[in-house]
């Protein structure tokens, strides 16, 4: 049992923290968040050069880490500065799928991701699927050697900046069956693919994706036909480590901002941090952030292990992070008062990102129900 960072991870944390301090000031981040692309391609390249993208992949896959604790480290740091880079989408989700299922040239794309020269997006969720991973209504039909896809995907983060989408589609089985789901590697300029791109309230961009008779060659299939669910579940578990660690980083910065504000903001002749009510509420926030940190550690420590324990921790951690994130965001805005409501103060961007974590990969309610199914009943 050891909760210290290894020397290698400590070095990564130090260099990443320094890079972020130099390139991810709050002003820069907030401007980038609303830019056409939603993040900075230069910064992305810088992260890749630093080995940050590679840290999310195992040595076997050409990276330098890839364990749960590597992801937790990287994303906590990114969260601390409120970064909007689509590392979850390109690297953890799509990179993870390519590493697991890619064959031949597909697998080479992992190298491009690690180098920072490739952007990707996972087009999996659908308007009616509500976080349920196995609910896929997009259809794939075989026509000769080709695959033809029809359907609709929603809130595909990073889609318009992506070189490729990975698209899920069903060839057989009921709409929520785990069997029968396949994944395809689809260049974003493929005919029949329509992207309706838009900004996200917490920064970055996403798109609604329409698939109208999208015809793909046999080589576009990732892994075996109808057999993608286990990989989807695994990469979503890994992505849950990422977004939960990001949330933790966000909480830490928000907590620090709020504590600082309580010391300088005066009302009724004294710093508001001298009011016992706010002291005790901050103490509760601190306690809950420690809970969040422990939940992230639990998930990071189990994500590389066997499936049942892994998924139990996925749902436990995502539920807890969703609830604590809401508490921290709402309480920090409340304690700031009016200033906390303004777009130009740095809290706003961070609080919005923190709230939005609950809308990715299943919210607190979804995972509470899932935890009951996995661990209670």
């Amino acid at each position: 049992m050891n909760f210290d960072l290894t020397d290698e991870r400590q070095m990564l944390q130090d260099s990443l923290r320094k890079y972020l301090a130099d390139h991810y000031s709050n002003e820069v981040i907030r401007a980038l968040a609303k830019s056409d692309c939603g993040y900075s391609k230069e910064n992305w390249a810088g992260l890749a050069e630093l080995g940050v993208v590679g840290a999310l992949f195992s040595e076997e896959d050409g990276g330098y880490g890839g364990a749960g604790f590597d992801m937790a480290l990287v994303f906590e740091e990114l969260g601390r500065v409120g970064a909007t880079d689509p590392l979850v989408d390109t690297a953890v989700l799509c990179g993870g799928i390519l590493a697991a299922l890619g064959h031949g040239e597909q697998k080479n794309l992992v190298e491009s991701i690690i180098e920072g020269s490739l952007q990707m997006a996972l087009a999996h969720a659908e308007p009616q699927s509500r976080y349920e991973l196995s609910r896929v209504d997009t259809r794939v039909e075989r026509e000769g050697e080709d695959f033809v896809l029809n359907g609709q995907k929603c809130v595909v983060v990073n889609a318009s900046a992506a070189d490729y989408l990975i698209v899920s589609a069903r060839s057989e089985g009921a709409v929520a069956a785990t069997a029968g789901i396949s994944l395809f590697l689809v260049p974003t300029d493929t005919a029949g693919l329509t992207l309706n791109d838009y900004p996200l309230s917490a920064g970055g961009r996403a798109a609604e994706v329409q698939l109208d008779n999208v015809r793909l060659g046999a080589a576009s299939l990732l892994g075996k036909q109808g057999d993608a669910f286990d990989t989807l579940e695994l990469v979503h578990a890994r992505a849950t480590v990422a977004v939960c660690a990001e949330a933790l980083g966000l909480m830490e910065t928000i907590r620090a901002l709020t504590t600082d504000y309580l010391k300088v903001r005066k009302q009724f002749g004294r710093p508001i941090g001298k009011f016992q009510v706010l002291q005790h509420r901050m103490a509760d926030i601190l306690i809950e952030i420690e809970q969040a940190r422990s939940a992230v550690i639990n998930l990071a420590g189990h994500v590389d292990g066997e499936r049942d324990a892994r998924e139990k921790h996925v749902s436990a951690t995502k539920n807890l992070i969703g609830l604590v994130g809401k508490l921290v965001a709402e309480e920090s805005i409340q304690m700031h008062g009016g200033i906390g409501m303004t777009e130009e103060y740095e809290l706003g961007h961070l609080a919005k990102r923190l709230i939005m974590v609950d809308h990715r990969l299943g919210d607190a309610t979804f995972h509470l129900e899932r935890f009951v199914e996995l661990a209670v009943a």
Partner: protein
Amino acid sequence: MNLEYTDEQLAFRQEVRAFLEAELPESLSAKVKSGKTLNKSDIEQWHAILNKQGWLAGNWPKAYGGAGWNAVQRHLFEEEMTGASAPRILPFGLAMLGPVLQEFGSAEQQEYYLPKVLNGEHWWCQGYSEPGAGSDLASLKTRAEREGDHYIVNGQKTWTTLGQHANMIFCLVRTAKEGKPQEGISFLLIDMNSEGVSVRPIVLIDGEPEVNEVFFDNVKVPVANRVGEENKGWTYAKYLLTHERTNIAGVGFAVAGLESLKRIARTEQSKGRPLIENPYFAAQIARIEIDLMAMSTTNLRVISKAAAGQAPGAESSMLKVKGSEIRQAINALTRSAIGSYAMPFVSEELEPGSNALPVVPDYAASVTGAYFNNRKLSIYGGSNEIQRSIISKALLEL
């Protein structure tokens, strides 16, 4: 004890309902229902319709052109308004300034200003808060120095809601530095077109410029524009805050919000069934609905007392806290209900008639913005922390 309205009250409600059915433009109610942004002319149009009916100022005595309704009638009116998705009546001139002028203004001020509030010639905004003075309102610093027939006003106000549309602002300003902070404050009416007044919008975290900063740089304000006595403004301000508390619980908004949440939860799917049938989600709706059922009755109890002439005291604070908590809980659960469609921020979708390709379901477009915007409910008008202190002092004598 009797929970039912009298026949007279029911008849009044019927009258309001019939009026709204006949006169509320569908273009306006559709915007309200889907959370779209109301522009200036929308609000002016609706105020004019109500004014024509004599119902714009329900709380004003008839002598001043108001409807002269009692608390129960005002409640019924509010309930029907929110139920019909009518735009809300802006409170600044009608609920806030009007009663102050009627109580403390000179006859000239009443004759000059009150009709202009009703006919829309004056769009008022509120100049209370300052950057350094939030819950501690009395620590305000904007100063007015007397020079002959004028005050010279310098300073800054903030959180001025819809100040971008206003041509008049009522302000608390410091006219004396001696004594307690409360003692040197005066109440001034300032033309926003005066030289030296400038307005800067503040974009809130929902992305909308709802509030503003208002700067005063050597602004000349006639002494005649002072309401009441010099240095007695705090008294008038407190009076105003009491009147602002009409409908402080926001029951109508909560009821409409809960209905909207249920509608969405019947449309959204969870595992192939309507979300509302998911017990984990339904339990959260039920908890809010149960709280709202009780709070509505607390609200009626306070209204009933007010209609009988008893001034509500710390009960208003209780309604403020519980009312804002319930509305915020509804906002948060509605955000949960729309799932990943809470993430997009497509401001064009809030503008009716936009040509942008729709991204999210119509019911989802305003949900995230409303959630973030309504964090204000527990901050403004005396934060919930201030309200709790009022309650513990007034009712518990702690």
